[in-house]
C-alpha cells in the first residue's frame, strides 16, 4: 500500500524527460498512473525516479490527419472514447476503450500509458495491432516510428529504448466498407479480459474481402490471428465463417491463471473470434 522511496521529477520539457530517462534505466514514466501506481503500492516495482510527463505540452489530444488519426499519448481513455474523430474514423478504438476498467480509471488512465505498459491483457494493444497502428517515439535524438507489429516485445515490455517516450500513435483510416467489433470476455465489468478479440472486417457483395483480428490475453504480447485472417478472405458471410475461426488459437500461447487455463482460453478465442467477426461483418 505504501510504495518504496523514489524520486519524482515533473518534467518541464520533453527534452528534460528524455534526458532523465536516458541517464537512469530504473526511472519510469508516470502518465495517468493507473497501471504503474498499483505496482508501486504493492512493491512489485521499485523505480528510482518517476518522470511525470503530465504537464508536457503537445502530448494530448486527437487529430484527424487525413489518412490517419493521431492520438496523443496523454489523451485519457475518456477523451478517446468520446472523441468524434475516433468514433467516426477508427470506431474500434472507441469500442475497446469504452470497456477499459471503470469510469474513474478511464478519466485518469491514458491511451499511450496503457499501450506503453504492454500488458497483453489490456484491451488497447490488440486493437492497435489489428489496425496496424504506428507508434511515435520521441527522444533526444528525435522521432522514431515503430510499427505496431514491432512494438510489443514481451510481457510488459515494449521496443521503446531507454530515453524514449511514447508521444502518440497513428491509427490508419481503413476507409469505407469496414465493420468493427471488440468482443471482451470477462467475469466482472471491471475485470481484465480473460480473452478479447478485436475485429475489423471489410465486406463486399456479401463476402469478406479482408479481415483483421487482434487477440487480447492469448500470449505474452497481443497477437494477430493471421490464420483466421487468411482463412476468412473471400468467405461468404454466414456458416462458412465459423470453420475459418477455428484457426483463432493457432500460434498462441495463452497464460494459465485464476480465471482460465490455456485450453479454455484457446476454446474461447475460437468462439469469440467467430462472434466478433459476425458482429463486425454485420455492420459494414
Amino acid at each position: 500500500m505504501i510504495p518504496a522511496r523514489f524520486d519524482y521529477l515533473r518534467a518541464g520539457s520533453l527534452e528534460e524527460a528524455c534526458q532523465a530517462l536516458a541517464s537512469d534505466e530504473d526511472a519510469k514514466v508516470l502518465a495517468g498512473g493507473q497501471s504503474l501506481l498499483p505496482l508501486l503500492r504493492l512493491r512489485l516495482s521499485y523505480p528510482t525516479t518517476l518522470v511525470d510527463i503530465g504537464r508536457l505540452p503537445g502530448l494530448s489530444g486527437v487529430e484527424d490527419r487525413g489518412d490517419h488519426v493521431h492520438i496523443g499519448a496523454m489523451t485519457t481513455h475518456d477523451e478517446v472514447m468520446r472523441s468524434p474523430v475516433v468514433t467516426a474514423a477508427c470506431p474500434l478504438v472507441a469500442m475497446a476503450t469504452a470497456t477499459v476498467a471503470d469510469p474513474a480509471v478511464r478519466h485518469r488512465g491514458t491511451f499511450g500509458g496503457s499501450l506503453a505498459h504492454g500488458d497483453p491483457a489490456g484491451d488497447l494493444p490488440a486493437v492497435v495491432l489489428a489496425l496496424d497502428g504506428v507508434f511515435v517515439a520521441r527522444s533526444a535524438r528525435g522521432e522514431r516510428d515503430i510499427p505496431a507489429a514491432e512494438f510489443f516485445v514481451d510481457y510488459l515490455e515494449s521496443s521503446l529504448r531507454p530515453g524514449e517516450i511514447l508521444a502518440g500513435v497513428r491509427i490508419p483510416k481503413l476507409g469505407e466498407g469496414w465493420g468493427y467489433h471488440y468482443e471482451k470476455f470477462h467475469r466482472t465489468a471491471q475485470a481484465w479480459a480473460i480473452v478479447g478479440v478485436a475485429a475489423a472486417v471489410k465486406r463486399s457483395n456479401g463476402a469478406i474481402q479482408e479481415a483483421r483480428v487482434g487477440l487480447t490475453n492469448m500470449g505474452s504480447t497481443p497477437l494477430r490471428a493471421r490464420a483466421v485472417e487468411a482463412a476468412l478472405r473471400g468467405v461468404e458471410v454466414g456458416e462458412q465463417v465459423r470453420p475459418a475461426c477455428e484457426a483463432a488459437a493457432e500460434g498462441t500461447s495463452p497464460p494459465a491463471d485464476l480465471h482460465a487455463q490455456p485450453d479454455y482460453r484457446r476454446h474461447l478465442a475460437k468462439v469469440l473470434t467467430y462472434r466478433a467477426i459476425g458482429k463486425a461483418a454485420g455492420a459494414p
Partner: protein
Amino acid sequence: MTELDAGLVGEQIAESGQIAEPTGRGEIGRARRRKEDARLLTGHTRWTDNLQQPGMLQVMFLRSPMAHARITRVDVSAARDLPGVLAAFSGQDFADEQGSLPCAWPVSEDIVIPDHPPMAVSEVRYVGEAVACVVATDRYRAADALEAIEVDYEPLPAVMDMHDALTPDSPKVHESGNKAFSTTITSGDVEAAFRDAPVVIDRTYIQQRLIPSAMEPRAVLASTDGDTFTLWSSTQIPHVLRVMLAVTTGIPEHRLRVIAPDVGGGFGSKLQVTAEEVLCLLLTRRLGRPVKWSESRTEGNLTVHHGRDQIQHIRLAAEADGRIRGLRVELLADMGAYLMLVTPGVPMLGASMFNAIYKMDAYEFACTGVFTTKMPTDAYRGAGRPEATYAIERVMDELAAELGIDPLEARRRNWIRHDEFPYTTISGLTYDSGNYEAATDRAMALFGYDKLRAEQADRRDRGDPVQLGIGVSTYTEMCGLAPSRLLGMANYGAGGWEHGSVRMLPTGKVEVITGTSPHGQGHVTSWSQIAADALGVPFDDITVLHGDTAVAHKGMDTYGSRSLVIGGVAVLKACEKVKDKARKLAAHLLECSPDDLEFEAGAFKVRGTGASRTIQELAFAAFTAHDLPEGVEARLDSDATFDPDNYSFPHGTHLCAVEVDTETGMVKIRSYVAVDDVGKVVNPLIVEGQVHGGIAQGVAQALFEEAVYDADGNLLTATMADYLLPSAADLPAFTTDRTETPSTGNPLGVKGVGEAGTIASTPAVVNAVVDALRPRGVRDVQMPCTPERVWRAVQGTRGGVRS
C-alpha cells in the same frame, strides 16, 4: 448537501411504488430516509483511520510469507536504527504479556483450543501471521522499516487439504493434531429412515472459502494517559471486545474504554478480537504514546478472518412420492490455523438448519473441525446458515430431478404448512410463525414461473446455445442471536441479551442509548422510529447514541441479525418504563389516579376531561423536580435489557432465472425475484437495502468469489484484481416483495433481515445454473460457477459433476 439531496435515492425508492407506505401517523412501517446518510455521504465521518491524537505513532506489522515454519531468528535492530522509527519488536518481545487470542465457543468436550499468540513467537501457521512490528512517526517510514527486519524461517510442511489433514501420517498444524473437534447430533431413528428408502440422494458440496471484504478496511487506534486506556477500532463488537481485551491483556475493565466510531461494514469480519487490537493496546502501554494501525486491502485479504470453507456430505432418504424420511449431514469445517472468537461455532450455527422448512422423521448432523495452515475462518454474513441452506436447497432440487417433478412441488410435499405453526422441527427448534405457501405463491406470480418454464422447454427443444435455468430457494434461517439460555446450552461464552436506555432531556428531546453497534445498518433511524411511536415524540426529536462503552455502558453488539429483534425491543421496553414513570408523575400533577390516564400521541389525558400533560411537559417537571410525588425520582430516564425466549425465523422464496451460454460457460442472471417474510417491518427502505445487499453477497458466492490458496499455502487472491467482487454493473435488477407473518417472540413482531438475502440467494443461483444444464447430464457445478467451470461441466470434464 441538504437532507433532501442525501435522501434522494431513498425518496425515489419510497415513491417508486415498490414500498407501500402505510397511512396514519405511526413511525413504524414508514420508509424513513436514514438520519445517518447526509453526514456519511458528505464525508463528515469518523472512520478510525481519520482519527488523530497528539503525538500519535503508526504501527505496521511484518507478516509471514510462509504458511508453516519455525521462526529461528528475528532481528529488528536494523529497523530500529532507521530515521523516524521509534521502536521495533518481535513476537518474543511480547511473549510474556500478549496472552492468547480468545475463542469464546468451545463447542464440544473434545475441542482443542491451541495457544494463539497475537504476534507469532516460535512458529507461524499461515501466510500473513504477524511476526514483528515497527512503530514510526509515519506510515511511509514504517513501511520502509519493515523491509529492514530480518527473519529466518525453517520451513515446515503446509497443511492445505482437510481430507489429507485428517489422515494419520499428515503433517500437523499443532502438536495436538489437525482435528479441532468433532460432534454428532442425532434425532429420530436415522438408520430406519434410510433402510429400504425408495429414494436416496447422496451428494457432496464444496462451500468455498470467502473473504468478507467490508468496504472499510480495519483500523485500530490506542492511547493511554498512563492510567486509563482508550481503544478505537473498526469493530462490530465494542462491548464484547472490551471484556475480552481486559481478560487478554490484564488491563482492568474499568480502566479500558472501547469506541467503535463510524464503521464501514463488517459482515461478521469485525466480530472478532484481533491480534492488531491486542498489540496496539500493548504498544501504547509500552511506549506511552498513541499508536494507530490501518490495514491495506491486501493485508486485509490475508488476515481478516475468512468465511465458509466446508465440505458437505449430505444424504437424503425419501419415499417414492418425495416425502422426506431422513437426512444425514457430515461436515468437514476448515478452521484455518487457530480457533478465533467463534470459529468452531460457525458450522454449529448450521447444525439445526439443514432440515430447514421440511418435515422429516430422522436427522443426523456430524461435524469435524479441521486445522489447516490457512487464515482462520469465522463468522461471515449468515455464519453456518448459508452453508446449511445451500446444501438442503441443492439437494431438494436433486430430489425433484430424481423424481421428475417440479422443484417447488418437491418442497410443497415436505414443508411445514402455515396451519402447523408453532412447529418443533426434527432438530429441536420451534419455529414460531411462517407461511411458506404465501411467499412462494407471491414469488411465482412475480417471476412468471410458468412462462419461464415454457421458454426453457422451447430453448431445450431448439438446442439453443444459450440455455435457460430456473433456480428455487425456499429458505428459512435462525436469527436474533440469541436467547441466553440457549447459548448457554450450546456452551457459548456469553449471553445474548441486549440493552437499551432512554434519557428524557429537560427540553423534551430524547436520547436513546443502545448496546447494538451499527456499522451500516441504520439503527439510528430505526431506533428513532421505535422510540417515536412508543413515546409519542417526533422522529426528529430523537438521537441515538451507540458504539462507545463509556456512553452505552452495556451491550452485546451487532451480528447474527440480532439488533432489531433484541436491541430494538430493548429500546421499546425502556420506552415503556419511561412511560410508567411519566404516568405516575402525570397522575400526581393532574390529581387523578394513574388508572384514569390514557396515553395518546405523546400525552397523558384524564379520561372524560380535557386535562392532559405531554411527555415533554412531564420531562421538564421531572427536571425541575419542584413537585414530585412521594418516592418518585427526579428523572424519567429508564433502561431495559431484553432476552428473548426463542430465536426468530425469517423465511422466504427466492427464484432466479439464468441464461447459460453453453459455448463459453458464461452465466448471466436474467431475472431474480425475492419474496421475504421478515415479520413486521420498522423501515421498509432499510429492509429493502438489506435484501438487495444480501442477495448481491449471496450471488457473489454462487458466481464470483473464492479465496484461493496454492499448494504451498500462498493466498493467490490477495488483491481485488484476483478476488472478484461483483459491482452493481454485474448484477441484475432484483424484484423484491414481502409477506408478513409477525414473530410471536417479541412485542414488535420482527424477525431480523441482515442475513436473509445472503442465505437465500446462493442456492437459488446455483440451482438455476444446474437446472439449465441438467438435460446435458450435469448435476453439479462447484462454486463459484465461473465460466470455465460451467464450460468444463458442459464438456463433461473436471469442474462439473455429471450423473
